[in-house]
């Protein structure tokens, strides 16, 4: 339980730091950029619950993000709802969408599931483009409310809100990882049939993971319209969210909740710096190149890389074993279809 206490302390410290920064730092751009970094922490953490723990690769993160954002827009336009209501509604609606995507895993595994998530994203985008009430393809301008008490600007307030969401998301991901749920999800990732046979409630776990993952992505997107003061489908459904949500955990390491956090903070910060100093297209390219580089060269991400380096320089120098090397010569039975159907 010492780990738990330490985590709690760190979480509280993170929130206090965020509140303090909102009071102390003068530069408004700092909050503008930090908000994006925190938003990616939430997205990456949420993606990892389904993608990293359970092994179901979601290419449609942008859809969940946008559903959250557009839920907020619809509520603002319809009843001028307060932010907390927007967040809760985004959580619920994106969670439902996630539940639906989770139901797809009933029949679809591997690449088929991933393609289906692309399909969900495009269908959602088409629906929003054709939905006049929230601006359709032309978008909609949204007025930021006055800054709440204690805050100098609304962006600062949103920064603190996002910090809170990020801490909660990470805490949730950590809880899932260390509890029986995480063990079940890992069993699904390693061998779903074996897990099912061993009594793991695979369907329930997959549905829960997909719904929670989607809900958190929706919450990450909910403050987006207020943050930008503008919403339009192309930026809300941007492929950048889908790629980043997947690249950040893979770069950080998917096996633990720390990985997505490290990946998101590093990558999103680099992106912010490149956007400012070079160009916004190049920052997107950086993500793609890093993703491919890490997938090929360091499959376990930064976490695996540091662990390997530590092991190499550590005491057990003689007993280094690199797993998973050179097994290609053994034919894998599962790969070959057994029926010799004639063309």
């Amino acid at each position, binding site marked *: 339980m010492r780990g738990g206490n330490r985590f709690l302390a760190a979480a509280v410290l993170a929130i206090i730091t965020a509140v303090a920064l909102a009071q102390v730092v003068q530069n408004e751009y700092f909050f503008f950029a930090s908000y994006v970094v925190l938003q990616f922490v939430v997205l990456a953490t949420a993606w990892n619950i389904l*993608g990293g723990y359970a*092994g179901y*690769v979601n*290419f449609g993160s942008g859809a969940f993000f946008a559903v959250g954002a557009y839920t907020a827009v619809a509520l603002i336009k319809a009843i001028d709802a307060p932010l907390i209501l927007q967040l809760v509604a985004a959580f619920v609606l994106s969670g439902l969408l996630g539940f639906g995507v989770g139901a*797809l895993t009933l*029949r*679809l595994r*591997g*690449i*088929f599931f*991933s*393609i*289906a998530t*692309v*399909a*969900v994203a*495009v*269908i959602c*985008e*088409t*629906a929003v*483009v*054709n939905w006049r009430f929230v601006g359709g*393809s032309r978008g909609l301008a949204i007025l930021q409310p006055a800054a709440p008490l204690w805050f100098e600007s609304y962006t600062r307030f949103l920064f603190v809100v996002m910090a809170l969401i990020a801490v909660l998301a990470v805490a949730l991901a950590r809880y899932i990882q260390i509890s029986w749920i995480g063990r079940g999800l890992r069993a699904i990732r390693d061998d779903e049939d074996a897990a099912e046979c061993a009594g793991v409630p695979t369907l329930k776990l997959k549905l829960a993971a997909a719904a929670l993952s989607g809900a958190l992505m929706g919450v990450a997107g909910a403050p987006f319209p207020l943050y930008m003061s503008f919403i339009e489908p192309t930026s809300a459904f941007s*492929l950048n969210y889908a*790629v980043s949500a*997947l*690249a950040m955990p*893979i770069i950080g390491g*998917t096996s633990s909740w720390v990985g997505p956090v490290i990946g998101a903070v590093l990558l999103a910060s680099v992106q912010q710096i490149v956007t400012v100093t070079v160009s916004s*297209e*190049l920052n*997107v*390219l950086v*993500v*793609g*190149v890093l*993703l*491919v580089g890490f*997938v*090929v060269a360091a*499959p376990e991400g930064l976490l695996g890389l540091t662990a390997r380096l530590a092991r190499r320089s550590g005491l057990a120098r003689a007993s280094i074993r690199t797993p*998973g*090397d*050179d*097994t*290609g010569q*053994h*034919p*894998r*039975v599962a*790969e*070959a*279809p057994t*029926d*010799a*159907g004639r*063309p």
Partner: protein
Amino acid sequence: MTPELLIEAVVAGILLGSFYAAVSIGLSVAFGLLDVPHIAHPAFLVLGAYGAYLLGRHGLDPLLAGALLTPLFFLGGVAVYRFYHAAFERRGSDPGLRGLAFFFGVAFIVEVGLILTFGVDQRLVEAPYIGKSLVLGGMRLPLRMLVPFAVALALTVALSLYLSRTFAGRAIKAVAQDRTALSLMGADPVRVKQWAFGIATATCALAGALLIILGPVEPGLGRLYIGRTFCVAVLAGLGSLPGTLAAGLILGVAESVVLTSFGASWAPAVAFGILLVVLAVRPAGLFGR
């Protein structure tokens, strides 16, 4: 909708459908036969379209440009497969998550690379047959669609014949059925797969030329074609080339009918909608193995 309008939509759909078969046939080989999670296929397609655009600017006919680019794309495909094999398949570890992420990243790099080189504007090509129409029984058939139809049909038929009639083609089918047995026969499955993946990529050069003949192209177009190509490949039944043609026609007609009755902004959802239904109801597709 009037019957005339419906007939026109169906005819346009058939023309379009053959083109969809041509853009998906490479995927049918790479994904259907070789089990490579080739999400970057549509990105290569757009790359082919830009290749035709680039050569077209020097006065070359887009079809000729596409044909000239095929050897280059073939070599590129071989290189990509060798890399994929070395990085994922040979390690024997589960290539699932990482293989997908790899091709997703490659597709993303291609798209952003195109944006950085050409900008986000739409690009067109010029050719003598673009803009003219053939009037047949009171119906206007734009050559812009007829030419891709004819070339796509030829490409699809030629590739299915190649796979079923030639020795190399049958070797590709064999590696799809049972790679262990193939290696027991003394053939190297990796070389066969590399050859097949090269062919699959080479079709992108020609199909990409058709893509830019059919209409203007922009870097983000690949994402839309993820849905169309995978819809066709899955609906066909993985790896079935005659099925690819049938599935392409089904998608083309469905899209064209939706376009005439509901408007163009709903068209992108058609392919994905069909794909989801097929995946949910009959994942083996029409002509599944």
